[in-house]
């Protein structure tokens, strides 16, 4: 069995979730290679070399992959796929974007967002916003899989893989990158933080998210939000937690002014400890919370910040 894993990165940093995807690959078993496709991404290659359990790092460093456009990356990965039984990527926005193209070009079905490996061809994945868990067997000889990182533990970074430079430079020529508007933040990534504190519609406006910042500073937490808070323009879209936003599973998740709709729960209910702060004792969030406070968030938050 040979497995190729696409490395998530931004040309500077290897996204830590890739380490969890490697552990999903180890559960399948076989020779594991990584692919770094990007431009001026030597720093990422250095980090990829150290990922445990990996024998080779393939590097496609070319302007065609600078923004990891799906049209170009999918051609590269499809070409490399000839040598592998399993192609994997983390179910983040890059992998979700190009992997189904790879599957279609290889004429195989994709198994999205796996949370468990039963055997080399049988995988476990959530459906219906996590309200049901499906066990699916793939009948294709080649497997194309995306992995929900929160379901796997990260592998260590004490490896020493060989680096193989590729000469491919496939540019489909049908799309181009215009610009990025990335949110700058000093805080840990939502996906990587041990503590996440999220605000919902109950926060009333964007300014009030400052009340979460003081607490986040003390706990080293990332800040998230419900869709209602994002829709209302309180905070940017990349903070959304849920079925269609980010999936998080920190040690501690604090939901503030969030009712607990199934779509929100889908993104956080695998957190180890859940705390809910909500003035409505009937809010569904209390059904999943380990500790709840039924109170006005504007009273609770300043006091909580003081007492931490």
């Amino acid at each position, binding site marked *: 069995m040979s497995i190729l894993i696409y490395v998530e990165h931004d040309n500077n940093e290897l996204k830590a979730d890739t380490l969890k995807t490697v552990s999903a690959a180890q559960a399948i078993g076989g020779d594991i290679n990584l692919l770094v496709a990007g431009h001026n991404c030597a720093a990422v290659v250095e980090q990829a070399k150290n990922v445990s359990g990996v024998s080779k790092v393939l590097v496609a460093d070319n302007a065609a992959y600078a923004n990891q456009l799906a049209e170009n990356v999918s051609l590269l990965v499809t070409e490399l796929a000839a040598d592998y039984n399993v192609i994997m990527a983390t179910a983040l926005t890059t992998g979700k974007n190009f992997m189904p*193209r790879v599957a279609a070009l290889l004429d195989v079905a994709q198994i999205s967002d796996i949370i468990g490996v039963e055997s080399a061809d049988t995988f476990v994945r959530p459906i219906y916003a996590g309200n049901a868990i499906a*066990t699916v067997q793939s009948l294709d000889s080649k497997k194309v899989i995306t992995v929900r990182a929160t379901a796997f533990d990260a592998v260590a970074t004490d490896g020493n893989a060989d680096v193989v430079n590729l000469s491919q430079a496939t540019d489909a020529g049908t799309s181009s990158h215009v610009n990025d508007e990335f949110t700058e933040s000093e805080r840990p990534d939502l996906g990587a933080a041990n503590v996440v504190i999220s605000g919902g519609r109950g926060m009333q406006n964007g300014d009030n998210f400052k009340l979460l910042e003081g607490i986040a500073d003390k706990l080293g937490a990332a800040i998230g939000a419900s869709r209602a808070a994002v829709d209302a323009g309180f905070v940017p879209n990349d903070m959304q937690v849920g079925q269609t936003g980010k999936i998080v599973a920190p040690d501690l998740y604090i939901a503030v002014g969030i009712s607990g709709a199934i779509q929100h729960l889908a993104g956080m209910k695998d957190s180890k400890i859940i705390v809910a702060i909500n003035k409505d004792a009937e809010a569904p969030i209390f059904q999943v919370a380990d500790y709840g*406070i039924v109170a006005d968030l504007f009273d609770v938050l300043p006091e909580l910040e003081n007492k931490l």
Partner: protein
Amino acid sequence: MKVLVPIKRVIDYNVKVRVKADNSDVDLANVKMAINPFCEIAVEEAVRLKEAGAATEIIAISIGDKSCQEQLRTALALGADRAIQINTDEKLDSLHVAKLLQKVVEEEQPQLVILGKQSIDSDNNQTGQMLAALTGLPQGTFASEVKIDGDKVNVTREVDGGLQTVALNLPAIVTTDLRLNEPRYASLPNIMKAKRKPLDVKEASEFGLDLTPRTTLLKVTPPAERQAGIVVETVDELVEKLKNEAKVIA
């Protein structure tokens, strides 16, 4: 410019599904069904393009059994001009849905295909990208803004770090994210009018495709239930519990 909008009939997003006692699948008997919310946003976007003079004709298409005609009628009431049902009783893999859509794209030659980014039942998030690959077209997935600009379309995408804008040569494939627009409600006169709009039915078996399943659903189980915990009375108590009982803060 012709716009093709694939829509899927799914469980209503407010309904919490239950797993069947024999663990063979979820139980959809007597459950409220609706257009997949992302597909509704796709229809709305197409209608707005038509209202803005950029689109001339909107074709809604759904692949499924006869019951999906209900969702096609809704799409017609929302502003689609005509509809196509590809009839099948099978639960198809996204790959097969994409292959059928590819055939329709070849026949209809739309300049733009707008799909939802994800079905809220399978949570696959595959079909649009697969269709793009099969047709060799560029894609703008997870769109929060779509701007036609001559023979190109600029799509602003919701990505993990924020927003990314790409320029795609037309024809192109777009998949919608939630913030692209807020769908309108169908008015009563438009619901009446929709009954007379054309709805073609084709058999999936007529397309000459091998639609043999590539995956087998072995079982479906309910997720691990979380136990509701306790309600604490004071912030002091909360901090004490988090430190000493849960041990998640120092």
